[in-house]
């Protein structure tokens, strides 16, 4: 691109018009979407905030309950811990896949890319259903236990184990793609240079590749962690009510108790936790990097 021409000029959409009509054109292009987003997104979210403070009457009582009643603090703690565990598992499982995807340039890399894309695009519910079959009492794991004479299989479904496994399986492709996006920009010449300077493959990886891939690690972890905080379908279908996540609590309060005020307060806490995580990321890395 001829940078000298296009950089400072800021031409309007089509015609090369200057002056006040320029900002009017921008305004015309941006106004409809801004208006719709405010009306159909900001206002509904603000309404939740309002309900959390005013339903049934103006007070902070709902927030006080969220942070002091042991049942609810346990939900908060459990959501946080589960998200950390799932993020860690995705990182450990995802890193080798992304690494091989960029380092090899043959059928293995194509196969991995195909598998990752496939699982990325397959809906949450299909995959949750698959785990229900695999871990169920009439599933292959139970059948294998029987065939090997190990007696009845342990209860796998509707446990912490099954919901953690399901969530990890669902979020893993996100982690891999985030890692892949950063790793494919690492110049292979860096590794060749390290090797020619006498670094063994292990050392070259540790000293060169790993540090350069860290932005991908941060991006992927953020993406998985934040999604996990608000995870809804999979923990409900595969998990146990005993280790309830925040989104299940919101659902339960609305579906069973119609407790709008309290459910809204829990939603605001979830939103704040997500916002806080992203703000920390923004402070140290910059949110633009995530969209990048």
């Amino acid at each position, binding site marked *: 691109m001829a940078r000298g021409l296009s950089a400072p000029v800021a031409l309007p959409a089509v*015609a090369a018009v200057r002056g006040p009509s320029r900002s009017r054109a921008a305004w015309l292009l*941006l106004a409809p979407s801004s208006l719709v987003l405010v009306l*159909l997104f900001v206002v509904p979210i603000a309404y939740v905030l309002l309900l959390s403070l005013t339903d049934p009457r103006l007070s902070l009582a709902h927030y006080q309950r969220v942070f002091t009643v042991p049942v609810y603090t346990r939900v908060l703690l459990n959501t946080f811990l589960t998200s950390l565990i799932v993020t860690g598992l995705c990182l450990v*499982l995802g890193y080798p896949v992304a690494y091989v995807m960029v380092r090899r340039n043959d059928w293995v890399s194509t196969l991995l890319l195909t598998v990752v894309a496939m699982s990325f695009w397959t809906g949450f519910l299909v995959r949750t259903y698959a785990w*229900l079959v695999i871990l169920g009492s009439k599933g292959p794991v139970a059948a294998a236990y029987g065939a090997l004479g190990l007696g009845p299989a342990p209860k796998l479904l509707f446990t912490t184990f099954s919901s953690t496994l399901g969530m990890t399986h669902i979020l893993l492709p996100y982690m891999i793609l985030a890692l892949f996006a950063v790793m494919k920009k690492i110049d292979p010449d860096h590794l060749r240079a390290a090797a020619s300077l006498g670094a063994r493959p292990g050392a070259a990886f540790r000293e060169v590749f790993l540090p350069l891939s860290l932005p991908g690690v941060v991006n992927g972890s953020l993406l998985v962690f934040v999604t996990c905080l608000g995870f809804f379908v999979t923990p409900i279908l595969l998990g146990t009510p005993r280790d309830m996540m925040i989104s299940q609590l919101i659902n339960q309060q609305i579906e069973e108790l119609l407790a709008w005020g309290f459910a809204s307060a829990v*939603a605001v806490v979830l939103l704040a936790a997500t916002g806080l995580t992203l703000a920390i990321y923004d402070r140290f890395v910059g949110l633009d990097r995530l969209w990048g």
Partner: protein
Amino acid sequence: MTLAALLVALFLVTPILIVVPMSFSTAISFQFPPPGYSLRYYAQYFTSDEWLEPTLNSLIIAVGAMALTMLLVVPAAFGYVRYRFRGKSLLNFLIMSPLIVPHVVSALAYYGFLGRVRLTGTIPGVIAAHGVLAVPVAFLVISATLKGFDRNLERAAMSSGAGPFRTFFHVTLPVLRPGMLVGALFAFLSSFNEAVVALFIGGRGAVTLPRKMYESIRLESDPVIAVVSTLLVSAVVLGVLISVFMRGRGRLGGGA
């Protein structure tokens, strides 16, 4: 390292493929390996409204949401990429906000808000919610395409005597078309796969496919879900294979 990667790939793909034999099963519950094979549940899927109606609803809603998203995003992307103005970062934040807010929070918000205006349990209500929620993803794709567009093409067209509209429709749009199509596809799929908002606001009037699947899993009774899953997985496999063979390698990662 390669072995580890292949094992993880196996972990990723096995559960997705297991739904295929399940769909040909004769079992009345979730049993694997299947005790026998038949096409019974395919017949059931294609002949009963119980599943066809949610499928149709999902398609209508996804197409509607995609149209709404594109209507909002295309002008916004042009305005955002091609102009400088005050409050640009605030606007970016506004456009990206549906991606930042957890879906369950949005779902609760829509449930309360759309309930007020009597739009819960209606197809237009779900279209509106899904259309807004898909804005950030489509915006990312389309504004990226637009940033890579060479403005000299437009200048060349105009200096050769084409007017602004002619330039737009004969030069700008054709060049941007692939990016727009990817953005539209992302919007379509984000609605088609969306479950949480659909669960909260769909009601009885707008049961989508993910919602129907959710209910069927919860009751753990209806093996037709294996048929639906197999059809969905087949569509994904077809799409991914096409894009891999078309060497669209960079594009696959665009969703993350």
